């Protein structure tokens, strides 16, 4: 994983935060809070609940700042904390219901309605197709695609986040691209896009 400037900033902020620097903590929160909200929402469709979970992850980070190590990737560390937190707390709150099994959970992607409304017809056709294909992707393929493109993180970071090895991430991404391309060609008779791996 190449260390980009962004990652360097993260690590600097993390180190400062560990020393009790409030500005650095605030900077990390501003940078990641919304991204983490969106990720959590993929597992549990309850914005308030997910917000509480993300908040709690930051509370724990701040409380335990002195004891925390410096992660390879701050973003992957936070994503994976939120992932675990959402699942655990959802189980705790709904102890009468079944626990979300990460292996079984649908990684939900729904049609973005705002988007569909605003767009002109051709764009909405494209939108529908993308939506349909994403829906049809197996959930773990969908999750790697989401992490790779929406969260814009590296394969190593995806591996850390999902707690699987890097090779599995590559395999999942390969299958996802393949499935996406095949489905796209199948359902588009007019427009053909090339997906670059």
């Amino acid at each position, binding site marked *: 994983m190449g260390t980009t400037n962004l990652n360097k900033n993260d690590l600097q902020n993390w180190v400062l935060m560990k020393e009790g620097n*409030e500005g650095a*903590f*605030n900077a990390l*929160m*501003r940078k990641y*809070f*919304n991204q983490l*909200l*969106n990720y959590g*929402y*993929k597992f549990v469709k309850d*914005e*308030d609940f*997910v*917000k*509480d*979970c993300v*908040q*709690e992850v*930051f*509370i724990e980070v*701040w*409380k335990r700042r002195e004891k925390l190590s410096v992660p390879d990737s701050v973003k992957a560390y936070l994503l994976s904390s939120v992932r675990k937190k959402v699942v655990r*707390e959802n189980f*705790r*709150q709904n102890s009468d219901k079944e626990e979300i099994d990460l292996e079984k959970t649908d990684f*939900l*992607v*729904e*049609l*973005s309605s*705002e*988007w569909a409304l605003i*767009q002109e017809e*051709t*764009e909405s056709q*494209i*939108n529908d197709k*993308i*939506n349909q294909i*994403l829906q049809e992707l197996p959930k773990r393929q969908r999750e790697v*695609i*989401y992490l790779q*493109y*929406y969260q*814009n993180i590296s394969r190593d970071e995806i591996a850390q986040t999902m707690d699987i090895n890097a090779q599995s991430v590559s395999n999942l991404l390969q299958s996802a691209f393949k499935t996406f391309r095949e489905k796209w060609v199948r359902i588009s008779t007019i*427009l053909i*896009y*090339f*997906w*670059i791996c």
Partner: protein
Amino acid sequence: LENKELSVESLLKDESFRSWVIDQNAEAAIYWNQKATENEDFRKNITFAKSFLLNLQEKTTNISDNEINRISQEIIQQNEESKLRFWKNPVFRVAASVAFLACLGYFSYTFINKNQGSQIELATTSNQKNILKENQTNEIENVVLEDGSVVTLYPQSSIEYPSHFDAKSREVYLSGKAFFDIKRNPEQPFWVHTKKLSTQVLGTSFLVNAVKENTKVEVKTGKVSVYLHDDVKQEFKNQKAGVVLLPNQQVTLENDENRLVKTIVEQPLQVVELPKENFIFDEVPLKNVLKTIEKAYGLSITFDENKIENCFLTANLGAESLYEKLDLICKITHSSYEVVDAQIIVYSKGCN
């Protein structure tokens, strides 16, 4: 970004492109909308990449930077003050946080000393040796109870509790003002007794507030149930005798009448922090406006749906308090409202 690099893949990784789609950055929007008109391939790739990201995003779950700043300040302060989870952080509903304010006037100061009767009562119910903590300093003090619940005691306040809680209930006696962070345990309900009121913790987190002669219990989030102290003595824990309080509701004790009156707190706060945009209404049916407010404040609003059928509202109510919002809405839609039994009732003559 070079033109030749305008592939879907490179767009998806481009910071400016991402800030347009994900953060709705206005500058980036101008740039990319312009770019899309340059040639057909650009337009297709931009359309595809944008749609792809939005479909992955699925829904804008973003909250404002201001709110993030507020939360971060809260976390920092909370941690410094006492490592307590404050009521604004109803995070996992394992702990019930109570702020309990009981200014009982002149008598309260001397209550613990003079009113031996109540102390004995508590002692006999728990059959345990009681511990009395008085805060005579000018700073708040933390008291950790046996069950892990934490009581933050304000200056000039005192709390009495058994060294070991009864198996069936946890009961403490408070004089003055205190903040409770209570470990939830339905098997062993938590009771806070003051001279006149007894409050039972029913779950999650909440703020209870009683001031001056009119003892008052105020709930921010969560749920408590409040009883007249005398009722609790007579019909111990008879559910019928109590008043259940939900967020933004309060109960006051009318001294002369010796009864509990349930109303809405003076400054209701949003229970569900909705984004400000949700309060920008453009020709929105009044019914939907009221539903939005109902959701945000967790208060019940009653109205005649048929009457307000033709009422529409165009207004920006993002900054106003609940009552300011209601005043404005009523002014615009020629209606009126009143608060009855912690409910808001909107009266309308209808709109043409």
